[in-house]
């Protein structure tokens, strides 16, 4: 390392020091970023963790980025019970879809806004428990519990986000980690949540004259498809751009007139609502819920799905979630090895491919990407 440094004294030194303690340096983080990466790359703020390098568009990537591609996937998902209607297939597909919804919700928090939430399963638990307790103890229909779930998830988001979003982003990570534990232990200790046994006998949405599990599957498919669409559109809108800006450089975003606290709050609460709604689906699908389903491991797996797929990239996160959800079905009996590999994979991904397997592309069409992004060329042509 040290020999490396003497050979190329400028670059490694600059990058090493600027990032080690950004607040020790007088200049803003934005100036540091310009220092480190060169202004052409910083100008592409929103290109995320991926370096903003224009690349060739292969036919495959043109196909999968076509707007109809998502529609085809949804159609395939809806058609699944006609292709293979075994109870096992339907069950693991429903699980995978619920996991997709969780990953897409966490993607809003981590991928879009860059806030590390390590207790996302807490909102999942809040949703599942609110719905479960209301349906079993008070006999409500599942549909009627949804407003309560949303309210409960928002309250949870306010409780945790309120104090911590004003602080450094690191604090949020560890506070959410603690919050995940608080929710799980509370559910384990309280009487009305059924203690360690949890809640069981949760009714479903109704079978509409179909096989019960297939009816649930279709409802889940529709809800998850809408959730994926909603999160993708949120990410593209005004708020979505604000989120990406805050992720890239909070100080610069604030200087540009973005109320960073509000924007972060919006991301966190939106993520909480997604998690809560996924919890309702989970409760209905499982019919029984208990505290161990909502441990840190689960939160970490959702995070893994987001990171693997590509933070901030909706199609990537969907793919990542499907991979993470279906992998245990293929690798039964080697649980601990699987988690070990996940841990190593997280490190390796962050070092070598932080943008994930299906990175988010800046909102440019392939035709625009091919054009040279340098301004100097234009200047020479005009006079």
């Amino acid at each position, binding site marked *: 390392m040290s020999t490396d440094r003497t050979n190329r004294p400028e670059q490694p030194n600059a990058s090493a020091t600027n990032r*080690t303690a950004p607040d020790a340096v007088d*200049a803003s983080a934005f100036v540091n970023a310009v220092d480190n990466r060169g202004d052409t790359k910083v100008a592409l703020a929103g290109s995320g963790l991926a370096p903003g390098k224009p690349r060739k568009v292969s036919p495959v990537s043109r196909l999968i980025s076509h707007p109809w591609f998502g529609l085809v996937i949804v159609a395939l998902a809806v058609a699944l019970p006609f292709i293979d209607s075994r109870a096992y297939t339907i069950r693991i597909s429903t699980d995978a879809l619920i996991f997709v919804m969780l990953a897409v919700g966490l993607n809003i928090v981590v991928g879009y806004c860059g806030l590390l939430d390590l207790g996302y399963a807490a909102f999942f638990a809040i949703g599942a428990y609110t719905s479960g307790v209301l349906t079993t103890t008070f006999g409500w229909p599942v549909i009627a519990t949804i407003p309560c779930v949303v309210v409960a998830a928002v309250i949870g988001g306010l409780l945790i986000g309120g104090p911590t979003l004003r*602080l*450094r982003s690191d604090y949020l990570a560890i506070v959410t980690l603690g919050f995940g534990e608080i929710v799980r232990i509370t559910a384990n200790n309280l009487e009305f949540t059924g203690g360690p046994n949890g809640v069981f006998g949760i009714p479903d949405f109704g079978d509409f004259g179909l096989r019960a599990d297939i009816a649930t599957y279709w409802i889940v498919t529709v809800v998850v498809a809408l959730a994926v669409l909603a999160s993708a559109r949120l990410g593209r809108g005004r708020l979505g751009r604000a989120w990406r800006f805050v992720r890239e450089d909070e100080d610069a975003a604030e200087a540009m007139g973005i109320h960073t606290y509000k924007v972060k709050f919006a991301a966190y609460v939106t993520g909480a609502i997604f998690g809560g709604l996924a919890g309702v689906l989970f409760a209905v699908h499982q019919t029984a819920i208990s505290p161990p389903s909502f441990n840190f491991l689960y939160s*970490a797996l959702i*995070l893994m799905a987001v990171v693997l797929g590509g933070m901030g990239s909706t199609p990537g996160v969907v793919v990542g979630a499907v991979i993470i959800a279906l992998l245990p079905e293929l690798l039964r009996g080697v649980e601990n090895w699987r988690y070990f590999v996940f841990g190593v*994979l997280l*490190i390796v991904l*962050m070092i070598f491919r*932080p943008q994930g397997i299906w990175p988010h592309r800046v909102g440019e069409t392939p035709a625009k990407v091919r054009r040279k992004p340098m301004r100097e060329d234009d200047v020479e042509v005009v006079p």
Partner: protein
Amino acid sequence: MDLEYLLQLILNGLFVGSFYGLVALGYSMVYGIIKLLNFAHGDIYMLGAFSGYTLLTIGAGVIGGQASIIVLVVIMLIAMVLTGTIGLILERVAYRPLRSAPRLSVLITAVGASFALEYGIAVSFGPNPRVYPVGLGNESFTIFGARLTYAQLAMMLIAVALMVGLDQIVRRTRSGRAMRAISQDPKACLLMGINVDSVISRTFFVGSALAGAAGVMSGAYYGKIDFLMGFIIGLKAFTAAVIGGIGNLRGAVLGAIVLGLLESFGTAWLGSEWRDVFAFGFLILFLTVRPTGLLGERVTERV
């Protein structure tokens, strides 16, 4: 509430607090220097317990069933070197390549490292809890009616000795001065000819060694270890570091003692099943009211 019970609660709190303190120091040191939340730090504590376990199993024939405190100290020192080296490797392999990466990447890497260490141990030692091959004596004495075992007293003394030692290293030695300098301005340190990378490595070594010492002691005291034991204590140590003011070493110890006492009283009041909820709830409350901690200065990202 009578006075003896109160004193007993205080002693319990101090004892638990000394464990938290040893782990919180490593957290705080690393955070102070490179502003990294080392999620894997709690797992280094777990690795300390497991390396102590392995050493004791290997040396069981030599030692015999009942370990004296001196044997334990020797084991602890070896385990400290081992965990320190692991911390050093961790920094080199997982964190150093990301020195210039966005903060989110580094945090995720730290989570990955924590996962890898936990399940690496689960794979190699099996997921079931292990029982420490030696027990500590149960002889105790009473001071003002509160009961304290000799083992507890010895561990508290060791912890205090380690903390004082660290304080001396950081305040008196050359490399301690380098550490403090880097936490203030790493760029200037480079200009002054300090080898920043090697000082960071040294910090990881020292912090991990302290966590490893705590791991061995808790293994010997509680008798049972498992691969997830570092998760909760990592969170608690972070809470302690925040209470004291993260980045501040004396603050970390103070925060650990405060947290230990709070937990001790909270458990007496609410019951032990609420202990963790109480501690983390307190963390959230503390961040709301005084995010800089008792002795800390500034924590916001503003420049």
